[in-house]
């Protein structure tokens, strides 16, 4: 499969046209997506117009485009002025955003070709992409299995080779978990590294947009384009952006890698443990040193996360009231009935469940016991990590307790689905960057991911370690049949 790096070089050097690369991605989607269900919308007209614009540029202008002619897929909670943005929800079924997200603009300016919008769990709430009002997305490694979620469509687009790169969003693991379950690279940047302007809000203190790619190098290339300050998102930080590609080739000799027992305990499948431990051996062979660390509060992460994320969601989703945009119920008498009926008809079961839980956690009499207490535990979880990063550069762990599960297997037990987020949510609560890199396959031939977490704004170092691991191994070269 061709990488974004090679495609953009060919287009920049005049050895390929952007129209050809766009058409080849559109053809791949036409051939494969009926079965995989990764896309909720294909933007053929926009893609071809953008490709023609790139081909018509003067050669020296085109040479400046770091993603010249590279096809990319965007999760359908990232606003695009030229295509509907539905969040895979009935309530936004016909919504056409009046503006594009910051990252959408950045991609277009860098010469990337947005070929479509991808499926997700409704409003990014879920870990399997099954909570979608649109379609079922299948894992290309075993089509009876989920691709993970919530950014399942973006992960599948890259894993199946329909596009070399994609964007997702990660509130509690929604980039890293599907990346792990489909055998691709996925990165959640530091909170505030990438503008959330035009990302439909779920948990505003946790949400971050980030890249999917087959290679770490492509993920770095894509992060170079989307990272950086934006005055339209006041939580977006102005700290200097590193050149994430430039530092990839540095040796990792002497890097200290923390291993926390709490991430290898009960519930971790043997097939996953084996591959992650083998990856740690490889990192030692590359000269890294592993150090045991303690993260004793890890087990409280899920409870903390599901109170904070749902509280924020209940507030963010209050805007869907059938007044300004989105679904409006037709059989309501007065305005309050109209709100309640529109929301009842427009939201799916998981979204309702989370709005209810969040409203409860914030309601009079329960605020102190639940929401406020969760925010205090969040402080302690951050402190746990700060103490660890005083001793180590990176923390390595599995991304998920097990590989991809069967479609429908967990959908009747919401709590069981939440518990599988145990390894990913701490990074969101602490705001730190974390990524998943393919590290092998379990006994059933399903991909396993290695998680790397680093201190705030250490993306360059994480990518460096992951790249050195990747070029020393060949897991990323295996593709689904």
């Amino acid at each position: 499969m061709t990488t974004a790096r090679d495609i953009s070089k060919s287009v920049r050097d005049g050895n390929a046209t952007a129209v050809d690369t766009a058409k080849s991605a559109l053809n791949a989607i036409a051939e494969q997506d009926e079965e995989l269900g990764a896309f909720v919308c294909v933007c053929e007209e926009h893609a071809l117009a953008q490709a023609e614009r790139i081909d018509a540029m003067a050669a020296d202008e085109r040479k400046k485009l770091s993603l010249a002619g590279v096809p990319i897929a965007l999760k359908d909670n990232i606003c695009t002025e030229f295509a509907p943005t539905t969040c895979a929800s009935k309530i936004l079924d016909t919504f056409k955003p009046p503006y594009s997200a910051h990252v959408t603009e950045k991609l277009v300016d860098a010469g990337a070709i947005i070929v479509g919008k991808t499926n997700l769990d409704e409003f990014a709430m879920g870990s399997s992409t099954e909570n979608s009002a649109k379609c079922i997305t299948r894992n290309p490694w075993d089509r009876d299995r989920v691709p993970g979620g919530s950014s399942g469509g973006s992960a599948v687009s890259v894993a199946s080779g329909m596009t070399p790169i994609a964007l997702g969003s990660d509130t509690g693991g929604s980039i890293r978990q599907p990346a792990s379950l489909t055998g691709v690279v996925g990165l959640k940047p530091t909170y505030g590294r990438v503008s959330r302007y035009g990302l439909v809000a779920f948990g505003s203190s946790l949400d971050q947009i980030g890249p999917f790619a087959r290679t770490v190098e492509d993920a770095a290339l894509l992060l170079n384009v989307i990272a950086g300050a934006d005055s339209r998102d006041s939580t977006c930080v102005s700290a200097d952006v590193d050149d994430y590609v430039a530092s990839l080739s540095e040796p990792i000799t002497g890097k200290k890698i923390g291993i926390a027992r709490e991430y290898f305990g009960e519930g971790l499948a043997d097939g996953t443990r084996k591959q992650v431990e083998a990856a740690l051996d490889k990192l030692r062979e590359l000269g890294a040193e592993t150090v045991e660390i303690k993260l004793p509060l890890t087990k409280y992460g899920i409870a903390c996360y599901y109170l904070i994320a749902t509280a924020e969601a209940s507030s963010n989703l209050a805007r869907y009231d059938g007044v300004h945009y989105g679904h409006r119920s037709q059989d309501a008498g007065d305005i309050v009935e109209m709100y309640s009926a529109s929301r009842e008809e427009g939201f799916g079961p998981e979204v309702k469940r989370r709005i209810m839980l969040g409203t409860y956690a914030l309601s009079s009499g329960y605020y102190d016991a639940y929401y406020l207490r969760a925010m205090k535990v969040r402080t302690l979880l951050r402190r746990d990590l700060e103490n660890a990063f005083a001793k180590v550069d990176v923390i390595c762990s599995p991304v998920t307790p097990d590989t991809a599960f069967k479609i429908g297997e967990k959908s009747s037990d919401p709590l069981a689905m939440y518990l599988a987020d145990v390894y990913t949510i701490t990074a969101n609560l602490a705001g730190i960057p974390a990524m998943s890199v393919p590290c092998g396959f379990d006994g059933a031939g399903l991909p396993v991911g290695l998680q790397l977490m680093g201190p705030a704004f250490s993306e360059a170092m994480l990518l460096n370690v992951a790249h050195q691991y990747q070029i020393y191994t060949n897991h990323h070269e295996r593709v689904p049949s």
Partner: protein
Amino acid sequence: MAKLLTESDVRHIATLSRLQLSDNEIAMMTEELSAIVGYVDQLSEVDVEGVVPTAHAVEVQNVFRDDVVRDSIGADKALANAPEREETFFKVPKVLDQDTV
């Protein structure tokens, strides 16, 4: 100690959430939310005495911009997705009864 929710608690939360749940949904939600609340209750084990709550993981401060007029998207674009509109307004069902006005 798990604080299990009753159907009447769930109806109250549904009203606060502006969700017109069916009886069937209320019954299911009572069971599911009770299980989840029972689980998150484990946070009461953690000693949080004197701990300052975290609202944002990365320190954020108020960000000010110059107080100058900027272009906005305009009425037509803002109204383009409206379920119902009249002239340059969003139209909604009646808010108050004639009698109460």
